[in-house]
């Protein structure tokens, strides 16, 4: 499966790539904001996206909306520091399938992505 990582932090992008790149996921793009994500998404057609919410230029909520317009079957895991329930519910209502709160361990992330993929297979 192809993976697109969206986060304005270079160290978080690297951490996600390290954690998931070795788990049958091919990292096809790294985006620093929503605009870059939309552009990379159109070119690389990923199956799975990890999405930060607080980013410059275009935030994660707007980006989720745009990506799902391009392909409603995309699996989106929100990876954000925003820990309130209302934000998680908003992202899930928009069509994201999972929410992982920062700070996270590589194991937490791998588990969350596995759940996301399992849910898609069985759902």
């Amino acid at each position, binding site marked *: 499966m192809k993976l697109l990582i969206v986060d*304005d*932090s*270079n*160290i*978080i992008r*690297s*951490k996600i790539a*390290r954690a998931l790149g070795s788990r049958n996921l091919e990292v096809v793009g790294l985006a620093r904001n929503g605009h870059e994500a939309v552009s990379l998404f159109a070119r690389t057609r990923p199956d799975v996206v990890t999405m930060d919410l*607080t*980013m*410059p230029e275009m935030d994660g909520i707007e980006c989720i909306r745009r990506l799902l317009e391009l392909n409603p079957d995309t699996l989106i895991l929100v990876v*954000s*520091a*925003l*820990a*309130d329930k*209302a*934000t998680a519910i908003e992202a899930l209502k928009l069509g994201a399938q999972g929410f992982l*709160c*920062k*700070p*996270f*361990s*590589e194991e937490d992330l791998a588990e969350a992505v596995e759940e996301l993929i399992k849910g898609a297979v069985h759902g």
Partner: protein
Amino acid sequence: MDEQNIQIFIDGVKNYFLQQTGVAAEVGTPYLSDAQARVAYEYTGIIGISGSSRGCVYYTAPGALLRDVLLRIGESDVTPANQSDLAGEVANTIAGNARREFGKDFMISVPVVVSGGAERISLPPDLRAMVVPILWRKHAAALVVALAGTS
């Protein structure tokens, strides 16, 4: 900023270091900042707050601490660019996690990172800033919280 609210940020600091590095941070007694002697280390990640509160939260740390944290989280690139990135990410994570208690209307900006002295950090002049001293593996750092409610 009352005692209960500052505890939310203290918990955020403790959770961040323990979760990310496996080594607990010691947090000292918070104190009111002197506007003339603002605390600042080499890198400072600043988050602007709006909505139900206004003001800012900043995390400031020396490069040596940030290098050490980067290595502990498995990041081999410990260049100044990544140290700066980490200062912003710590501030973002602690401020974002505070929404668990403050709710969605506690709106946070993207981080702005400055390097160098305190003169580059501007706080709202009408707000009192609380300094939370942090000690992690013998490195001193601080979280500074300057907030007022708007509702």
